[in-house]
Every structure is written in C-alpha cells, then in structure tokens.
C-alpha cells in the first residue's frame, strides 16, 4: 500500500514535504486510534470482578495485553512525531476505491441484517446484481440472471445438499412463501 505518487507538474520539494506531513499525520492517527482501543480495553478489563481466594484474576491477561497495546500505541505516536520533525518518513497510503469499499461494507452490513428480516433468498436476489454491478458487470441480462441463479445455487448447495437450516425472515420469508 505504500506508494509515493509524484505528479510531473509538481515541485518535488513542496510535494515531498506536504506528503511527509500527511504521512506523519496518518501514522499519528493510527497511533491515536490504537491508544483509544487500548484505553477502552483497559477499562473493559478493569470491569472483570476480582479473583476468588486461591484463583487468578480473570482480567489479568486482558489487562496486561491492553497495557502493552497502550505502550505500543504511544511508541507509534512518538515515532510519527519524530519522523514528521526530521522529515524521514518516505511512504504513505493511497485512498483509491475507499468510497467503493465503504459502500460495499454498508451493503454487507445491510445484507447480513436483512437475513433476520427477510430470510436468505430475497436479500441474496437483491444484493447479487448490486455487487456484480459494483465489480463492473454491465450486462443487464447477466445481472437479471444473477437475481435468480445466485440465491438458487447457494440455496441448493448449502440448504439442500449440506442440510444447513436456512435463516428464517421475521418480517417476510420468500422461501417460506414459495414453499407455501
């Protein structure tokens, strides 16, 4: 992921210093996120009740692990500050396709939640062409076929052949309706 992108028309010195600032900030942000996670984990471990006599505290491993994570996040923040000030940082992350991934993640979250409401078949029939479209399939016939084929094939493979009990839709279940 670490790639330096240099435009031909840009002044290399300005571009590099701007880039270093961005990367230093990015690493600092990573350290801060980790530190927040570590503090939350320390707080969570602290909620574990104390040990009964002759036993060990159930929170000892979570607590020591989160303290170690806090130390590492502090190291990350310190090193990013130092790297920004000395201008040693040389690499950064690109943000290509991040919006698409966020959209796909949102679809994934809605898709998994919709199993609870509408069972497996209907959400899959809707999501399959949407995901195919996101990945670049532009054939309307192909997308239409996926509406039927994807839920059908997965249903046969997992719920018929493997005998897995399908999730039941609380609001409406197409499979239930089809089977009468």
């Amino acid at each position: 992921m670490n790639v330096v992108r240099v435009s031909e028309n840009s002044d290399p010195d300005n571009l590099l210093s701007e880039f270093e600032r961005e990367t230093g900030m990015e690493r600092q942000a990573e350290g801060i996120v980790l530190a927040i996670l570590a503090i939350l984990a320390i707080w969570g471990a602290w909620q574990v009740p104390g040990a009964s006599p002759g036993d060990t505290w159930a929170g000892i491993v979570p607590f020591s692990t989160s303290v170690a994570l806090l130390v590492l996040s502090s190291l990350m923040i310190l090193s990013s500050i130092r790297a920004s000030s000395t201008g040693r940082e040389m690499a950064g992350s690109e943000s290509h396709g991040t919006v698409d991934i966020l959209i796909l993640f949102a679809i994934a979250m809605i898709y998994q939640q919709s199993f609870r409401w509408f069972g497996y078949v209907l959400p899959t029939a809707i999501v399959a062409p949407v995901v195919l479209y996101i990945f670049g399939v532009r054939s309307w016939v192909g997308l239409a076929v996926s509406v039927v084929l994807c839920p059908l094939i997965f249903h046969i493979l997992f719920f018929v052949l493997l005998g897995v009990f399908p999730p039941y839709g609380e609001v409406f279940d197409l499979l239930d309706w089809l089977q009468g």
Partner: protein
Amino acid sequence: MEIFPALLSVITDPTLLFAIVLAAAVGMIVGATPGLTASAAIAMLLPITFYMPPLFALAFLYVIGKSGRYGGSVAAILFNTPGTAASAATQIDGYPLARAGKAGKAMKVATISSVIGDLMGDIMLVVGVGFIASIALKLGPPETFAIYFAAFVVIGSVIGKSIVKGLASALLGILVAMVGLDPISSEERYTFGSFDLSNGIGLVPLMIGVFVLGEVFAQLEERKKTKGEIKENAIDPTGHSLTYEEYKPCIPHAVRGGFIGAGIGVLPGLGSAIAAFISYGEGKRRAKNPEQWGKGALEGVAAPEAANNAVSGPSMAPLLTLGIPGSTIGAILLGVFLIHGIQVGPTLFLTDKELVYQLFACGMLGIVAYGVIGYFGATQVARLILKVPVNVLYPLIFLTAFIASYSARGSMFDVTVMTVAGFVGWLMRKYDFNVAAFVISFVLAKGAEETFRQSLLMSDGGALIFVERPIAASFILLGLAAMGFRIRSIMKERRLAEGGLGDA
C-alpha cells in the same frame, strides 16, 4: 515407520484418493488465481468440512494448502502477479523467463522443485514430529507459556514491515480472543451485557471475514487502482519442454531450498515468504551464474520454490505437538481439529496417532497429485484462469462468505462477526498491520492464557517462575532475541536506504 501403514490405508481408500486429487487441483487453481489465496479458499471451505469425517476434512484442506503454495508460482511466472507472498521470490526470475517465451520451462522447474522441497519437508516432519511430541509431553505450564510467548513475539515482530504494528496486531488478536466467558472462573470479559458476545468470537467467522471478505474489499480497491485492467501475458504452449540437462544445475538449489524451508517452517510464524527469499539470496550467493539471476535463470525459480513448499510439512510440527500453528493455514487446520473434537498437542500422538500419520500420508500423496497436475497441466490451468471473469468471481466469493459463515453454526451473530472482521481485515491490510499475526494470536491466546494462569497458581502468583526454569527462560530469551535481530536488521536496512538516498 507408522507412515507406511498409513500410506497403505490411504492408497486403498478411493474416496480419500479422489478428495486428495480434487484438493490438489482446487489448491492449484486458487493459488494461481491472482488475488485468491489458499488461506481464503480453506477458510471458505471450512464450514463444508463440518459434514465430513475428520481425516477427510483435514486431508482436503491440508492438500489445498500445500497445492495453493505451489499454485502461487503459476501466477508469479505467467501473470507477473504472485498468488502468494512467497511466490514474489519466484517472480524475480520466473517472469523474465515467461517474457522470453520460456514460461512452460519455468513452470516445469517450479513444479519439480516444489515437489522436491515439499517431500523433503514432509519426510523431516514424519521423522522428527514424534521426537518433538515426546519432548513436548515433558513440558510444564511455564515452559509451554514461554513457547507461546516466543511465538507471539516472533510472529508479531518478524513478519511484516513494522515491528510495532506487527506486535500491535498480535495484541489485538489476543484481546479479541478474550471476549466471552473466562473458561476458568466463568466471569464475563468484554461482553458489555450481550448474550452473543458471552459465547466469544468464533474462529470460523473471524477467519472467513479476515481472509475472504477482507480479500474481496482489497480486490475492489486493487481494481480501482488498475482501472479494471488485468495484465495479461501471451502464453506460448509450444517448445517449453524441460530436459534433465537443463534441470541438473537446479538440483543443488532445490535441495538447499528444501533444507532452508524445512528449517524455517518448524519455527512458528516465519512462514514461506521468508524461506523463499532466504533461499533465493543464498542460491544467488552460491550460484555459478549470479549475473543471470534476476534476468531469467532457471535456478532462480528452483531455489525459492523448493523452500516455499518445504515450509508446509514442518510448519505442522508445532501445531500438532504444541497446539501452536506456525502459519495461517495451520491456524485454520487447528480449527478443523477442534471442530471435530480432536485435542491438538503432545497427547495427540497418544490418542490419535493413526489419524496424524494418515494425514501426513495424504499430504505426501497430495504432493504427487499436484506435481503431476502441475507438470502436465499448468499451462492449461493458466489458460483456464485467464478465462475466469474476475468481475464475476469476486461477487460470488462475497456472497459465499456470508452463507459459509452462517453455515458453520447456523448463527446470525457469526455472520455479523464475519462482516465486521472483513472490514477490519481490509483496514489492517491497508494500513500495513499484520493480519497473519492477528489471526494466529487469536488462535493461540486461549492456550497461552491457560498456561500463564496455571503457572501463576504453581508459583503462588510469582512471575519469576518463567525465568527460574531454564527451558522457559531460554524460550523467552529466544523470542526477545528474534525481536532484537529484527530491530537490528530494520535499522541496517534504514541506514542503507539513507546511504543510497544520500548518494543519489
């Protein structure tokens, strides 16, 4: 000697033989498909194996793992896109050979070297695993915890670009494993009052999320970078035969690579990528034609490929004898053992010795299977892969991830875990955190915690027990030394880079 009756029993079981051949073909196709990994395929197929007998399930996934490692070389040679991290070393000489119209020759060298390395690794595993298990039986909780500690430190610090991020990934894996009821006192940890969380985070949805859905996210990002263009190279199927005279100079490199890979494979976490690059570097240093390396030397394909595949067998040794998976594939296989109610560790060789040796036998037959398929059919496999529409493949994988994670336990909570794990896995990849360290630490955490707390009980709460016992102390020192060496090598690389920039 247990391996011979095991081989006989596997050879005489046609269903198992069919599964091995099928797994070899599937692993090769998956490994050769750019962007797909054997880990992803195994994680996706894991729920299906719930419905299979233990040996069948283990053999199927184990052979996919082996064949997938080899399959990575096909993508590296033909498409200039290594299917696995380890295949990046094969790409250095493999792709120039393909550009020079010698793709078939390079793939045959890769196949033969992979088979040599993999068989060497498996033979060393069969010979040495019983010995390691007998030693492991004598280890107490402090020693076992020290081994876990060394594994955490090595996995966190040696793999990946950043030691801090690697160790942080390992710690995050431990923290996620702590969610749920404490197995000793039944106290709730990180459950926030949720009943679903009190059962803990499942291994299967986590694996599917990180390796499968995370990979789909990563591929979407990759497609945006390349604007949907897939680099394709012309394949010339004619005139790519390999003679013995041509392969002869490769034999010492393949054998050396086999020893390097087997040696590295037995150490948890180091993995095949490190073995492949060390073998490549060592091969080039000793080569008679070092100037040819990097421009299309057949030896440059043989050395990393043998090492890459030799890792596979020995990486099972810490998994089977100590319950410590040495790789992500090992971590998934540990899940299969647990799902089928088989306790992995030194006692495995007392309770399920026959199963273990039958699994080794399946592995060896799997090597032969992918060797034959690869030698005669690698070009056809490559053609098939080029025909697979990637824009259809990844949406199908996306949909499979959901149903596969649901099928594991019929739990909708598992599907939610898988979805979140997928996004977290993509974020970790994007920001150079170590996904392998995260998953392996997640798997190791429970065992490590148990031995740590048993040790504390033994010593009435004193942590000095870990330094007072010599074996425990030496493993802790080993972990710290590995981290020290890694820091030193990073500092050295940085100084060299700065020197290089200064010269420029």
